[in-house]
């Protein structure tokens, strides 16, 4: 436990030292929220967005940026790099376990997502009248399950990739698909209906986040699919993951 604490401390320091990663993961969505919030049209209610303002409609997609960056972009590349460079193997020769390093990386991803979500919700609420999640329990569930599904996919990439380069090569398309179906590149009202439906079931499940944030409880099927993806991808990753 002591070793885990020390590893977490150092890994957090290394993560923050990297600077670009936390900046894009947390500050980019916030900056976009501020930009759209400052445009008057962004705050007007519009029947196209289910009688919501554009920034209310778009905020869950901004949250997808944080989730996708932390879970399927940064995490797998860091883990694959550590494996390729023998950092995990070296740790296996000490009384500390390489599993502690994996756990520390997961904690950092979760903390990043939590901080990103709290800032996005808080700034939206305080500055731009984006309501706090109307269904807090449903929102928490949707966020937790969506995060779990994406982290499991990130771990799967880390497990399958043999090298850091390969991990990067696999992480980029997964990241872009996540962003696309999360409505980040094109707001979803611009997408054809069938792509929107696919997006409902693509981790992290942006529709469930939107429902719980601005309306009512998320649909159970949306949450169930996230759970299934998390379990299957997570179990496969655990089976395939190699320390060296």
């Amino acid at each position, binding site marked *: 436990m002591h070793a885990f604490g020390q590893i977490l401390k150092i890994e957090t320091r290394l993560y923050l030292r990297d600077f670009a990663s936390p900046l894009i993961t947390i500050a980019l969505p916030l900056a976009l929220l501020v930009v759209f919030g400052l445009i008057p049209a962004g705050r007007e209610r519009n029947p196209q967005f289910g009688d919501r303002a554009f920034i209310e409609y778009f905020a869950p997609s901004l949250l997808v940026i944080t989730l996708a960056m932390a879970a399927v972009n940064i995490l797998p590349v860091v883990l694959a790099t550590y494996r390729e460079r023998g950092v995990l193997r070296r740790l296996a020769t*000490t009384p500390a376990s390489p599993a502690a390093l994996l756990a520390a990386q997961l904690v950092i991803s979760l903390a990043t997502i939590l901080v990103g979500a709290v800032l996005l919700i808080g700034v939206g609420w305080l500055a731009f009248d984006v309501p706090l999640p109307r269904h807090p329990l449903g929102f928490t569930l949707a966020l937790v399950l969506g995060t779990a599904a994406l982290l499991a996919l990130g771990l799967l990439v880390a497990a399958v990739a043999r090298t850091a380069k390969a991990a990067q090569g696999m992480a980029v398309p997964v990241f872009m698909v996540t962003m696309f179906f999360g409505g980040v590149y094109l707001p979803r009202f611009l997408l054809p209906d069938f792509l929107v439906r696919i997006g409902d079931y693509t981790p992290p499940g942006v529709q469930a986040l939107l429902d719980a944030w601005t309306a009512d409880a998320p649909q159970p099927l949306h949450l169930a699919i996230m759970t299934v993806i998390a379990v299957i991808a997570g179990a496969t990753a655990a089976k395939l993951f190699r320390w060296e």
Partner: protein
Amino acid sequence: MPVIEVTNLHKRYGDLVAVRDVSFTVEAGEIFGVLGPNGAGKTTTVECVAGLRTPDGGGVSVLGLDPRRDGARLRQRLGVQLQESQLPDRLRVAEALELYASFYRNPADPARLIDDLGLGGKRNTPYKKLSGGQKQRLSVALALVGNPEIAVLDELTTGLDPQARRDTWGLIERVRERGVTIVLVTHFMEEAERLCDRVAVIDGGRVVALDSPGGLVSRVVPEQRIRFRPSSPVEDHVFTDLPEVSSVTRSGGQLVVTGTGDLLHAVTAVLARNQIVAADLRLEQSTLDDAFVELTGQRPAD
């Protein structure tokens, strides 16, 4: 008292037999070399000693512990420096040592270790900015930071320039003076000759010889050669009559006398008796290199 006992170790990866049958013991306080050509099974052998791999057959006992069953206890007492294991780019020297020190119950003082290894000026330097020699020294420091009783060092000086290599050798000698038993995996004969008390030569997954470096050389290639230019003509039999001499050859004005035992003394004595002065005299002794070639049929990689 042996601190490491390896008996009939066997390890395969799929169809490939990496270690066929390896046995040796390492005594407390010695520097034990594991030598062999690439792919001979050296690294697999020490990985089994360090508990990183499970042997398919045979036994390994380190400090009386089974590396697989008592891994957690053993790792408190055994320091390992692995081939090609790096650290995160942005991790600083002092951070790395303090982190690793925190894993052990009785760690060495990281600050002193940094000074001992000549990294005092690099305390806050990120790993990425270190030179090859500095990275290697940091790696050795990490293997020693837990105050281990045994240190396993795999391909310690590979990739270092000659000066950095010599500096690292000095370091290993200082570590031994502290009473640490060292297992040194290497394919540099000069390194083994200089540092090791005993060496096991491994080839094709087997121990083909185990002796002191000097013992190996004299056992495997006992011949020495003396070359010189005699000041006046001399008959072959002057030398071949000596019991130490096995043959005499001539090339140009040069004589080459080959033999065993105290060859130099015998030859110079007979020259003095005959009042012949030997110019350009050179004694050529076999080295561990020659012994290695003789034992494995391969040139040591360099």
